[in-house]
């Protein structure tokens, strides 16, 4: 079994168009959930979202490519470019064949699909844009990255709603650890700010009218966010041999399915994912010092997750610093696992835990040691990053800093 190093990180979301910007705002507790650029007509019941307001496709793609890629594919491509650049890898010869690309997205490209329906049902025009299919397919981002870097190894996309990119990173981790590949680009993206989709979220009645307040007694639901993140996962020895800078390590991964309910969270399913992840990592619960929680800000999730954490860590829960960075970059759905893995790696690297924004009144029912107000200095070796999806699909990553 090979150790798995993180040798590159790329991020795009409401907090910034690269990992540096993301990090600066994340640790400053600077919330990216803002009034919607397009408030809807009639207005959506929720007035805020974590859009990536300064992300301009034309800064990253020429006119033709910008039109060929939906926003979710643009996000993941830009994140992959940053991660690959940092890693210093070139995918020539055999390494190109021994590199995987695994991306996660819950929904793929919805904007051109919606435009097609608008033509079809509103304008009565049966001629839908000819590239609608390759633009909307969930693997559009993964395929673009493959084309761009000439990577010819295993390339595919995982769609498990809000666990998509944690599943993607977990699978990539397994492939590097087992030696199936030497390198894997893994992460995911989501672009949710499309009218039809926002109406569907509105109908679910889980989106807060104000910026979300995870683990707060006054929480009223989640805030939607968009963005993407990618990690370069690399065989440890390969990374060391070429003198790469190692940003952190993936130690383990656990997954479970609730087999309980389509949308209601399930304590035991969540706990199983965390327990499997710890076992996979060969880590004792006492070694974990930080959790980047799924922490959506809904009543049900946060209560169940807090109980699940206590089930896994017992009295040790009290010394684990828990945050939910969704309070700043929103719930980015299929991108959540990737963006939060980056947040977790940065927290370990900087010895600093980002706060939960707007959590002014921590819920006593959620018995966790939550970081609120401002980021907290803490030297921590091992952390967990959780995602729990609609459909009852749970995924938990164990990450470690460089010794």
């Amino acid at each position, binding site marked *: 079994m090979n150790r798995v190093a993180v040798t590159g990180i790329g991020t795009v979301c409401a907090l910034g168009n690269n990992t540096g910007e993301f990090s600066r705002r994340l640790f400053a507790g600077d919330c990216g959930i803002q009034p919607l650029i397009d408030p809807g007509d009639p207005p959506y019941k929720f007035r805020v979202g974590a859009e990536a307001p300064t992300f301009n496709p034309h800064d990253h793609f020429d006119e033709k490519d910008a039109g060929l890629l939906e926003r979710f594919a643009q996000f993941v491509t830009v994140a992959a470019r940053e991660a690959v650049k940092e890693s210093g890898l070139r995918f020539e010869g055999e390494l190109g064949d021994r590199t995987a690309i695994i991306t996660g997205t819950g929904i793929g490209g919805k904007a051109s699909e919606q435009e097609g329906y608008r033509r079809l049902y509103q304008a009565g025009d049966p001629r839908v844009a000819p590239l609608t299919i390759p633009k909307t397919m969930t693997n559009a981002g993964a395929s673009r990255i493959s084309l761009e870097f000439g990577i010819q190894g295993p390339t595919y996309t995982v769609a498990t709603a809000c666990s998509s990119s944690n599943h993607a990173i977990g699978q990539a981790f397994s492939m590097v650890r087992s030696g199936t590949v030497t390198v894997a680009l893994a992460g995911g993206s989501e672009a949710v700010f499309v009218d039809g989709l926002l109406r569907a979220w509105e109908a679910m009645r889980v989106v807060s009218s104000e910026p979300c307040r995870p683990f707060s007694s006054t929480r009223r*639901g989640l805030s939607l966010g968009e963005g993407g993140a990618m990690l370069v996962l690399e065989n440890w020895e390969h990374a060391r041999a070429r003198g790469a800078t190692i940003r952190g390590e993936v130690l383990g991964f656990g997954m479970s399915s609730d087999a309980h309910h389509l949308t209601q969270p399930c304590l035991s399913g969540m706990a199983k994912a965390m327990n499997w992840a710890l076992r996979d990592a060969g880590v004792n619960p006492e070694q974990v010092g930080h959790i980047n929680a799924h922490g959506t800000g809904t009543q049900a999730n946060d209560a169940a997750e807090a109980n699940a954490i206590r089930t896994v860590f017992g009295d040790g829960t009290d010394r684990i610093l828990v945050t939910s960075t969704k309070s700043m970059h929103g719930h980015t759905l299929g991108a959540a696992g990737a963006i939060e893995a980056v947040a977790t790696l940065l927290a370990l690297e900087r010895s600093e835990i980002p706060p939960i924004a707007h959590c002014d009144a921590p819920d006593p029912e959620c018995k966790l040691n939550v970081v609120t107000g401002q980021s907290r200095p803490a030297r921590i070796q091992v952390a967990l990053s959780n995602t729990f999806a609609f459909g009852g699909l749970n995924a938990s990553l164990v990450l470690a800093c460089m010794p």
Partner: protein
Amino acid sequence: MADGQLDTLSAEVIQVIAETQRLPADSVTLDSTFEQLKIDSLDGINIVFALENSFRIEIPDDAVRNMRSVRDAVAGVSRLLSEAPVQPGEP
């Protein structure tokens, strides 16, 4: 609101709940709790959506959280209907 109107309203609410839940109408009574009818959170969203459509009202999220029984639903709909703005031309 007069008793007769409330009865009509109750019957309509019961019909919406029964249809949404695919239940025989006579199995839903004013005293049924959502728990007895095995109405979970997802069913609840569907029922609220159907009530909004049937009565042309908008049920706020907070009201949904407190709705636990058919009687709650009837009372909530009744309240929202009485709060609805009077249309021009109506007495």
